[in-house]
């Protein structure tokens, strides 16, 4: 009975629709930027070092080639690989615009994971996070506001002479909270998993950071300042502590928004010190999931 009540408490209720749309747009925009080099002329991003044009597109290596899929037996020929890359790009644009948003998110996750699993050397944690986020977004009402499909629907209604709802914006429409709770659970698990993996003497005494610095992975004025003020061991312990403190703060409504600000600062700090690709941006978008503080009604 207690478990039943806990599930009801966790998943019953509503939340304003803007949060889903914001996460959808943020995730789709990051996806489009990370999987191509569109922005190369304006800003040099870390992935531009090895991504030219659309990521994973191009001629296959010479035969015989190293066939090394993450899933045994999965092999994509050149035609299938490139077709998947173009489909991935189309789906990410549709997701950004909010056209058949849930279907686009689900298919985009599927296509992306297929391309990912075809070659184990494509694996990066932040890409896995991006794709798993898309899979969870496919369960959420992500197209109910700020979407092209919704806007066209409203225009058609107006053109046909049907009155469009008088509400100021669909951004404030009530939508179910249960998909958001699952996205929140994903975010908490990412922080906690990263924190748990750092509960290791060699990390906590600062050795890993020392080596990362020696290899020019950790660099820049902000890192230099941190190291000089606190030292390797303290920075290591603080970064591990942050990976537990941020999710703990996110759990409780009273500390939620402070934890979001703390999380944003944490990711900005990491991004200023080392190459983490789009991970900081992705987590920042996902932190939006915790911004709403609407009370939830119990199940009757």
């Amino acid at each position, binding site marked *: 009975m207690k478990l039943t009540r806990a599930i009801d408490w966790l998943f019953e209720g509503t939340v304003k629709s803007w949060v889903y749309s914001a996460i959808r747009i943020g995730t789709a925009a990051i996806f489009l930027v990370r999987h191509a080099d569109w922005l190369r002329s304006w800003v040099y991003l870390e992935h531009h070092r090895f991504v030219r044009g659309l990521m994973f597109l191009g001629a296959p290596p010479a035969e015989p080639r190293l066939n090394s899929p993450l899933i045994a037996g999965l092999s994509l020929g050149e035609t299938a690989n490139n077709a998947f890359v173009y489909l991935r790009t189309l789906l990410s644009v549709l997701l950004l615009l909010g056209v058949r948003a849930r279907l686009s998110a689900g298919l985009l996750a599927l296509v992306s994971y297929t391309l990912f699993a075809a070659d184990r050397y494509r694996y990066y*944690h932040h890409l896995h996070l991006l794709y798993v986020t898309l899979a969870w977004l496919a369960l959420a009402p992500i197209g109910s506001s700020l979407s092209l499909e919704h806007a066209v629907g409203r225009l058609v209604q107006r053109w046909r002479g049907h009155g469009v709802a008088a509400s100021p914006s669909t951004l404030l429409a009530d939508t179910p909270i249960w998909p958001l709770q699952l996205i929140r659970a994903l975010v908490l698990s990412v922080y906690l998993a990263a924190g748990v993996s750092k509960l290791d003497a060699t990390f906590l005494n600062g050795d890993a950071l020392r080596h990362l610095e020696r290899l020019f992975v950790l660099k820049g004025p902000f890192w230099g300042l941190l190291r000089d003020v606190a030292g390797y061991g303290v920075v290591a312990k603080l970064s591990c502590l942050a990976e537990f403190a941020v999710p703990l703060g996110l759990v409780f409504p009273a500390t939620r928004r402070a934890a979001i600000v703390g999380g944003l600062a944490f990711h900005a700090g990491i991004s200023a010190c080392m190459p983490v690709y789009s991970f900081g941006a992705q987590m920042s978008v996902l932190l939006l999931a915790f911004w709403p503080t609407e009370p939830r009604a119990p199940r009757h």
Partner: protein
Amino acid sequence: MGRIPPRSVLAALLVLAVAPPFVAQASGSVVGSFTMFHRIVRYHLDLSVVGSDGEHRVSVRSLRPHLSPEARNIVLPADGYAVGADQVDVVAAGLPEFARLLCDLHPGALTARARLVQDPFDTGATRVREKELPCPSASR
């Protein structure tokens, strides 16, 4: 507004959202574990084939045309000593495929061997993982 799924489905989805990184860590898998920059190791890949005239070392660089662009980024530096965190486990999981590729590239070979040596910076504990495969030509 859509209907809320049954409690059992919601509970299963919650487990699915939370558990995978911890399951991955417990099983020693890098994939899905979100273990980021918690350690740093050096790794070196040694490749060789054994023919009727003895064992020959194969340069990792010589495989370049046969590797995907993504594999090149991670594998080619391991001809010397590459440095990484999670990449080393990805390479380790792919050792049998390297041995298979060596067999394909060296039709006269009897066996092919891929050996990954890794050592963390902080201790002298070196870990060696090796995969040796008999090549199809050996059975002819």
